[in-house]
């Protein structure tokens, strides 16, 4: 009897947990403006049979079947950061109905399986083009083959993919190695032959941004015999991590370093707090040159204030470039297999550079993320 009661209660708890879980997922997506397009995807599914019928009747190519509207599916990574939210927003703005597109955007919440499912859905719906921002680099061969068999062009956006280039049609994104090189070039220009003793606070171990930024920066550093990278440790892309690593760096290399490179803005905030506590000055008027990546709104505010010397962006505004490629495909013109989205760099007021834009209030005002 007791056992029965218990099992009933347990079942109730499980249901309750499931409801809480589902509710959480739904509502977390909603504020990020991702729910709306996901809902829009539903009517598109309903419409699919009708389109099929039209296609059967006319035996025409898919784009023509849906009139002038180009249907595009975007399997987005998730909404884990301000950067990602800006990226999503950008796609919604560019692939709007006013511009002649119908966008099905699926927020995959960093779930690899969900993303594969989303792409399969796009294939079943026979959309005209599929854009994937891959969560994981590997494991895409089967689903890409399915898309190819269905005759739907696939564009890989933002991140790299470990699949044969014949399985997808184009790649559009940023190159994190170039970001590292930009940071290095700027430092060389700024120091103008002076010595540099560099401490690096890396991102998460193994992340593509960490690898690229390290590699690019090191490439420039290797060309300068007067530069020395004293130490390089991971701050896990977090403010707390950046602070802890910097605290330790200060103790190990007290008075020996004059450059700190942080792999994202959050780490830079932490490093600044650690230097504040130890009474070390940084930025334009300080002893230490601070370089950061990402160039988010808050990061650029610090750049404008002269606390961060140079902030190299990783551009989330990629949709226009993708749209260009799609237009070329649509018109049957030749298109580039890989397109790099231009990354800018920003430097604090008072610094002029050929590699970077000097920060002003206007630049900051135009920064939504």
């Amino acid at each position, binding site marked *: 009897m007791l056992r029965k009661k218990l099992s009933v209660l347990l079942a109730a*708890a499980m249901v309750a947990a499931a409801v809480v879980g589902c509710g959480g997922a739904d509502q977390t997506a909603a504020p990020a403006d991702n729910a709306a397009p996901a809902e829009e995807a539903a009517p598109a599914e309903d419409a699919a049979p009708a389109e099929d019928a039209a296609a059967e009747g006319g035996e025409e190519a898919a784009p023509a079947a849906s009139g002038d509207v180009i249907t595009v599916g975007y399997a987005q990574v998730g909404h884990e*950061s301000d950067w990602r939210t800006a990226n999503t927003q950008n796609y919604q703005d560019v692939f709007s109905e006013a511009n002649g597109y119908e966008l099905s955007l699926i927020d995959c919440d960093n779930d690899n399986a969900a993303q594969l499912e989303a792409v399969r859905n796009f294939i079943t719906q026979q959309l005209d083009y599929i854009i994937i921002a891959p969560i994981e680099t590997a494991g895409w061969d089967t689903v890409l083959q399915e898309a190819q068999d269905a005759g739907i062009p696939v564009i890989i956006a933002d991140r790299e993919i470990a699949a044969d280039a014949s399985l997808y049609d184009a790649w559009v994104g940023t190159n994190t190695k170039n970001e590292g090189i930009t940071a290095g070039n700027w430092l060389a220009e700024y120091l103008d032959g002076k010595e540099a003793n560099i401490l690096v606070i890396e991102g998460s171990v193994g992340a593509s941004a960490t690898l690229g930024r390290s590699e690019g920066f090191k490439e420039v550093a290797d060309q300068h015999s007067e530069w020395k990278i004293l130490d390089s440790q991971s701050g896990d892309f977090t403010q*707390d991590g950046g602070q802890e690593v910097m605290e*330790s760096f200060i103790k190990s290399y007290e008075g020996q370093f004059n450059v700190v490179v942080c792999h994202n803005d959050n780490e830079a905030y932490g490093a600044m707090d650690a230097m504040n506590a*130890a009474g070390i000055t940084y930025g334009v008027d300080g002893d230490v040159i601070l370089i950061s990546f990402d160039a988010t709104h808050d990061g650029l505010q610090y750049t404008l204030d002269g606390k961060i010397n140079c902030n190299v962006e990783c551009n989330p505004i990629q949709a226009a470039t993708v749209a260009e490629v799609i237009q070329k495909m649509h018109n049957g013109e030749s298109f580039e297999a890989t397109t790099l989205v231009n990354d800018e760099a920003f430097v604090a007021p008072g610094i002029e550079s050929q590699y970077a834009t000097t920060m002003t209030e206007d630049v900051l005002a135009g920064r939504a993320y």
Partner: protein
Amino acid sequence: MSKLKSLTKKQLFLPIFSMILVMLINVIYDMACGNAPLSFFQIGIKNGFLYGRLIDVLNRGSEVAILAIGMTLVVSSSAGTDISVGSVMSLSGGFCCMLLAGYGVARANSYALPLWVGLLGGILIACVCGLFNGFLVAYLNIQPMVATLILWSAGRAIGLLLCNSQIVYVRVPSFQILGAYVGFLPTPILIAAFCIVIAALILRFTALGTFIQSVGINKKAARISGFNSARIILITYMICGLCAGIAGLTATSRIYSADTNNIGLNMELDAILSVALGGNSLGGGKFNLSGSIIGAYTIQAITTTMYALGISSAQAPVFKAMVVILIVVLQAEPVKDYFRKMTAKKAAKEAKAA
């Protein structure tokens, strides 16, 4: 000699010995590098604040030390672990920042509600989480790991939901007080010390500690002798939730923002490890709070040592694992037995020779 022997028999000898062992690595490294051999232990005042690696260990280890208090009690009473503490930390920090900044606001330069409301809110929601866990374990007899698995996954998600999936910054200087400095002392050290002292006083001057241990040793027997076993288990889970709340607010205040994705990430494992490193059995029953606290600081000492040695981040986990294995093996019963036998043999030989 006999003094040394009685020292090694003390329960806390091994945890303390392990911590010293970890710190000795630094001394050896510094000597090999030609630095001052004791530079790891140097404490000074810099820029008006306490400064030194030892201070870093105490400061950065605060959260895990606070968690270790609650975890020790939970392990003792229910022979299981509360794996939700990391998520609860994140939830309490997220809720606090949401109250202070207002819902949907990502950056606040002034409070929407008074500071104490935010802090109280954060603590309360953590206590509610503890109550929920405790209810499942104590009254529904669900395995502790399964019961706390619910909040392990849901806690962080609810935190994200409260923060509108953003990192919520509260850029008001008074909010940073918990994670920054009071006078020349880092506040987290004070908070941890305060929690430890309160816990020690309660365990010393009330019978709660005895109750918890008797429930942990034999729940049924404790109930028959007149203890309300279920309520005692519930209380331990609530204390654990409270500790997670305090740790969460400290971690949030450090970075003056609710980074719900990262606050307290994997910290439940550190908390459980510190209980084990403190020489406590994860099977429940008798416990030693000081051991767990020392365990918590040992874990931080390993991390700080790794930074000091400049071990690359990719190799650090391997190094950490090796140190942990060494400490755990040293404390394993068969190993202890072996050493006991060896010393007994030696004593017998000496006696024979005499």
